[in-house]
């Protein structure tokens, strides 16, 4: 449940930053809504692969690093605060975070027409592996999980939460209103950053007490 809620809360950021990769692709393909839904499902499948890969990394991090730390709550509190500031910086500021999936031209050329369907899957994997602030916040929460099953479940529910915002994208009407929805998504991510600062302070305070 926590993963889903976290995903739901941070999904606005994904909408603001991942959708720009997907929207031009969908528009350039110029397909109908049904085809767009298929493309989105390819994209989301790739994204899920990326997330589950990170669940494994989170579990390994927990085993190797976190469990051996004496002041893990203090560190997690500080990490939360730092990432929340980053989220606010991108949400309220004008800077764009770098995304590994941004340049698709070369990839499209290499895949050719035969394997064209792979492009949304690869874009999905790349956005899934992207170290953006909400993703790092989720990762920070996941490293606290003790078992691999918990980590996978957390990232799966996080994925579902963040995907909620991307599912309506294939509908043409929404694509037309995208220029308005994007700043709303960005600012909402900034507001969520304010919440995480509080959450980080609470975690930090808890470690002191």
């Amino acid at each position, binding site marked *: 449940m926590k993963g889903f809620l976290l995903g*739901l*809360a941070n999904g*606005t950021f994904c909408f603001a930053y991942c959708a720009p990769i997907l929207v031009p692709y969908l528009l350039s393909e110029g397909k109908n809504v049904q085809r767009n839904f298929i493309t989105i499902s390819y994209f989301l499948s790739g994204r899920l692969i990326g997330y589950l890969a990170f669940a494994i990394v989170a579990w390994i991090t927990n085993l190797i690093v976190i469990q051996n730390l004496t002041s893990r709550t203090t560190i997690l509190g500080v990490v939360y605060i730092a990432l929340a500031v980053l989220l606010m910086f991108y949400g309220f500021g004008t800077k764009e975070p770098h995304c590994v999936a941004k340049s698709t031209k070369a990839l499209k050329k290499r895949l050719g027409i035969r394997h064209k369907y792979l492009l949304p899957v690869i874009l999905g994997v790349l956005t899934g592996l992207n170290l953006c602030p909400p993703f790092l916040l989720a990762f920070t929460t996941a490293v606290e999980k003790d078992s691999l099953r918990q980590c996978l479940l957390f990232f799966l529910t996080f994925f579902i939460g963040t995907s909620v915002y991307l599912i309506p994208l294939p509908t043409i009407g929404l694509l037309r209103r995208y220029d308005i929805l994007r*700043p709303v*998504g960005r*600012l*909402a991510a900034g507001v969520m950053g304010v*919440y995480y600062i509080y959450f980080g302070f609470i975690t930090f*305070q808890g470690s002191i007490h």
Partner: protein
Amino acid sequence: MLNNSTNERGKGRSLIKAFLLTLPMLFIMALMITGGSGLPKDPLHLLPMIIAYIFINGTFFLMILTMKTDKYRSLLFVTYALCFVITFISNLIEVRGSMVLTHEDMSQGHTPFCHMVIPMVIVPAALTRTIIFPGSMLEGFAAIGSMLVLWLGASITLGKGWCSWACFYGGLDEGFSRIAKRPIVKNINKKWTYLPFAILLVIVLTSAATLAPTYCAWLCPFKAVTEFEEISSSKILLQTIIFFSLFVGLVIVLPILTKRRIQCGLFCPMGAFQSFTNKFNIFEVRIDPEKCVQCNLCVKTCPTFSIDEESVKKGKPKITCTKCGKCVDACPKEAASFHIKGTPLGVNYEKARLIFIYPAFLFLAIMGSGMITGAIYRVLLLVTTESMFK
């Protein structure tokens, strides 16, 4: 027809015509203020009623006579908000002994419900069939049911006009936004006009996730002038610091500096939610492209950032327009006007204004009369007994 109405607007109406048009309001307000049960004999109750009656109807008369909307609306709107604060706090202190809301009050459902909570309760109510607010559904002062009915009625009638004609908080930052002669801060980045929608999105999500009204707990600036939770933990202390800071910043300081309604235009999630009601409401403000000389005075005067250069070109304000009438009054070429959807543009705009201001003013007058009467009563009580409480 067009020229006649243009000339009329410049001169205003004759006294007799204005009086005749005010008559319906005089009758309705007489019924509303007395509750249909005659006048009280106690001068402490009678005097506030008379003052409120004269003030409200006088405002409406001037609105009709001068054909100016915003100036008189604002006068009543700001008075209503100030009187709301006086009446609300006095009632709270009389009933509870302080403005502080205890856990006991909340568990007994004694928290007054306000419209700000509405966007937060919809999703949880649909999912869990529970209203996530510690108030009473039908009983007592400001029950959830009565507030919802009132809001629904106003939304159908006025759309986002609610924010300039009915909201009991809006008059506070409007009042402060009218203090300075000229704005000190002029350039505000357009992107911040999306912030209310972002806050709306976050509070709807977090309220659904936590099954608690997060805006009320963390962000509502108006808790500073209504009621707030008893400080019993560092978390509540932090919440108190946040809403007091937001009140000072968004309702007092920034409106003075910018001459705009910052809380309403750049923060209020309820306002953002209310914007969608403009889609189905029949009243709107339009800018006639044939008359418009692109002076952008409407852009500069709009208190809620609802008009920009692009919307002037399009001939209508953004979805966030609160129908306050400031642009209509300010337009030197009378290009901006109230309009009824489906009717031709630029024809009979005074009729359209009248058709709009009757229901709009009625909402403001009905909601404001109780507050104004209550506040005058408290002041009179203070003067005569040296205490505002019975």
